[in-house]
């Protein structure tokens, strides 16, 4: 790709970017949010038109080679209600009438070559995130893609599954294909990729062999200045304040999503909850908020937490950064003003008795928006006009600037870059030094290990703690996440 420029209105998303990936390589593309990584890949894939620039594959203009490029976007294209075989071929069926024997034989062949095995007649809803990721890769192979673009492929995977993914990619690269991986995780770049391109602010900063760089250097290239060191060391934790005992929560399918889980959190602690997506983190949080019934006991500051209404829990200082921004955190048609008060509308500074305190609300909304540099035009604009990353900044700001006592944060840095993530964790730790406690669910174990005081693992609804001395040991916790202690 040479001289690619893309403009959205007055905003220049990409400016004269050159990009080159070689067959047989895993090429990493890194950069902050809004650096233009995904836009560049969309231009390559063909779902975004470039204002100028040229894209060639194997020396031919990209239009003639469109079929050779495949992309796995951040949001998987696997449809859970369909069967695995149906998902594999939808959109690229071999004929108008489907011949199951023939299709299955081809699917088996492709899967076996990769060392995967699938039950082709099983519904895809039964796939784990790693399984869905594998199916996505097979979809590209089914379409005979030579260039494979993967956008944040390991965002939802456990360390072991990530390793396996890169092993697969390596195998594909050895066959002469090109794999391009867009990622936030520098460690993966260093461990698995041959070359790396860094974008910053829509421009290419560097393309270099991974062997010639290191973590600090890459971080500097990405954010343009040195990464700030993690704030203070672990503070002396106070007395136990949050006690979860034998908590059991039933999931949507009637299974024990949280199964007899116990956890003690001391005053001032930031506890990371590591685990593969779907290990019960969601249901644990819903039980803490009170939107899902639970058995067992939760005591916070001596109060029987499960007997409180959700409103009382919020009034007692529960602050939430939920998993699903759109569904659980904001009302997209409402303004930033209104969203600032969402859930906290009963109490000051948002209310005066039974009345809305519009001035207090406006002031607090400004504080929330500025806390993590939400980019917005006016506080009166609807939430949906903000980009995903900016919505996340706002939601995190709301949770962390309104006197939290118990912070429950689900992937609080989802979709944010290094700088934004660091600021959010700083704020969480700051509140905890003031006496709050925080539970942080994350899918990136490395991030949790760096940012939290202690990391526990969740697997199949149970909470496991690493034995003394290994509370921050990557391998020990990684094993607990997949249930091998």
């Amino acid at each position, binding site marked *: 790709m040479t001289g690619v420029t893309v403009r959205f209105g007055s905003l220049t998303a990409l400016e004269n970017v050159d990009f080159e990936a070689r067959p047989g390589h895993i090429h990493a593309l890194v950069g902050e949010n809004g650096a233009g990584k995904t836009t560049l890949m969309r231009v390559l894939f063909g779902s975004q038109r470039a204002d100028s620039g040229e894209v060639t594959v194997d020396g031919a203009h990209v239009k003639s080679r469109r079929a050779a490029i495949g992309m796995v*976007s951040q*949001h*998987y*294209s*696997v*449809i*859970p*209600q*369909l069967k695995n075989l*149906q998902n594999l*071929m*939808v*959109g*690229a*069926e071999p*004929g*108008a*009438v*489907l011949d*199951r024997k023939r299709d299955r034989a081809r699917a088996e062949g492709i899967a076996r070559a990769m060392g995967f095995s699938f039950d082709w007649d099983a519904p895809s809803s039964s796939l784990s995130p790693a399984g869905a990721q594998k199916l996505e890769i097979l*979809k590209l192979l089914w379409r005979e893609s030579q260039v494979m673009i993967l956008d944040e492929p390991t965002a939802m995977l456990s360390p072991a599954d990530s390793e396996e993914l890169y092993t697969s990619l390596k195998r594909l690269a050895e066959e002469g294909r090109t794999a391009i991986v867009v990622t936030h995780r520098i460690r993966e770049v260093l461990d698995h990729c041959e070359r790396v391109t860094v974008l910053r602010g829509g421009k290419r900063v560097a393309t270099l062999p991974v062997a010639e760089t290191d973590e600090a250097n890459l971080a500097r290239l990405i954010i343009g200045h040195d990464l700030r060191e993690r704030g203070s060391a672990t503070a002396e934790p106070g007395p136990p304040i949050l006690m979860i005992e034998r908590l059991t929560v039933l999931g949507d399918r009637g299974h024990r999503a949280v199964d007899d889980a116990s956890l003690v959190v001391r005053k001032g602690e930031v506890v990371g909850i590591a685990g593969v997506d779907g290990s019960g983190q969601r249901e644990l949080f819903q039980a803490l908020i009170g939107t899902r019934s639970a058995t067992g006991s939760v005591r916070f500051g001596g109060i029987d937490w499960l007997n409180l209404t959700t409103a009382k829990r919020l009034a007692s200082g529960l602050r939430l950064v939920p998993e699903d921004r759109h569904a659980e955190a904001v009302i997209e048609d409402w303004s930033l003003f209104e969203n600032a008060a969402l859930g906290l509308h009963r109490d000051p500074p948002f209310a005066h008795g039974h009345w809305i305190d519009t001035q207090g609300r406006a002031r607090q909304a400004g504080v929330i928006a500025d806390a993590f540099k939400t980019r917005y035009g006016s506080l009166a604009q609807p939430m949906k006009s903000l980009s995903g990353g900016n919505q996340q900044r706002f939601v995190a700001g709301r949770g962390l600037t309104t006197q939290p006592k118990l912070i429950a944060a689900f992937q609080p840095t989802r979709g944010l870059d290094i700088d934004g993530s660091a600021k959010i964790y700083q704020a969480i730790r700051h509140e905890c030094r003031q006496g709050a406690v925080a539970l942080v669910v994350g899918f990136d174990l490395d991030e949790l290990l760096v940012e939290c005081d202690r990391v526990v693992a969740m697997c199949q609804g149970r909470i496991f703690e690493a034995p003394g001395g290994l509370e921050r040991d990557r391998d020990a916790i990684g094993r607990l996440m997949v249930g091998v202690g």
Partner: protein
Amino acid sequence: MVEVLFASTVTLTAPLLLAALGGLTSERSGVMNIGLEGKLLVAAWATGFVGAASQNPLLGLLAGICLAVAMSLLHLLLTQTFRIDHIVSGMGINALSIGGTSFASKGLGDRSQSVAGVFFPVWMYWILAAAAVLALALALDRTRGGLRLLAVGHDPDKSRQSGVDVGAVRLRALLATGLLCGLGGALIVTNATSFTDGMTGGRGYIALAALILGGWRPLPTLVACSVFGFVMALQLQLQGSELAGAAVPSQLWGALPYLVTLVALVGFLGKSQPPAGLGRP
């Protein structure tokens, strides 16, 4: 008695089935369709009117199908191009159809009333309805078009990612809806031998209920339609009969199919899984 009941069950089931299958293709593509009633009605009117005017059953049927297809495409245009809420568009189509056919049947004269015997025999429709069930069941399971229909209905965005042309799938689905509802409406007027105002009598809604009970799948939808058809036939038989020695008002028997619909929906609704992308752009 039993033979009469059976024959009238088939007679009453067939139009329900055609309409429900029409709803199936539409809703499987993610387009909610409460406008089945309206499509049945315009098809019934056009088949009766053109059939009588031209004295040609084929022209009558074609006119019915064309008008139902036109209504179906109007729904597609409103919901996909202009992004109008699917329920609102469906309601609009029903209102337009009720008013339009009422106006047309008076304004253009009651020619359809005066002539009988310009229709195809009803068994032709029965065969078509049965064939449609089988064809749809096979298509959903074994063809590219069927697979794409399922995919689009569950998740239009992900289908686009996989290279499916969502608009094309929906266009074909809604064409099929128009065709099937056109046949259903034509059958209703054929059964009655002439058009009367509002003659579909809510059968489009009962078909929708059958579709939901059938879990948006062809064969279970056939079963649900048959149950409704049977209850409708039963109420005709029970008209004028007594219950525990007391005369039962005919309206009460007449309400039976609707009551069964209500009870069935309340009882089964939670268990039926709709296409996940229903109503999504």
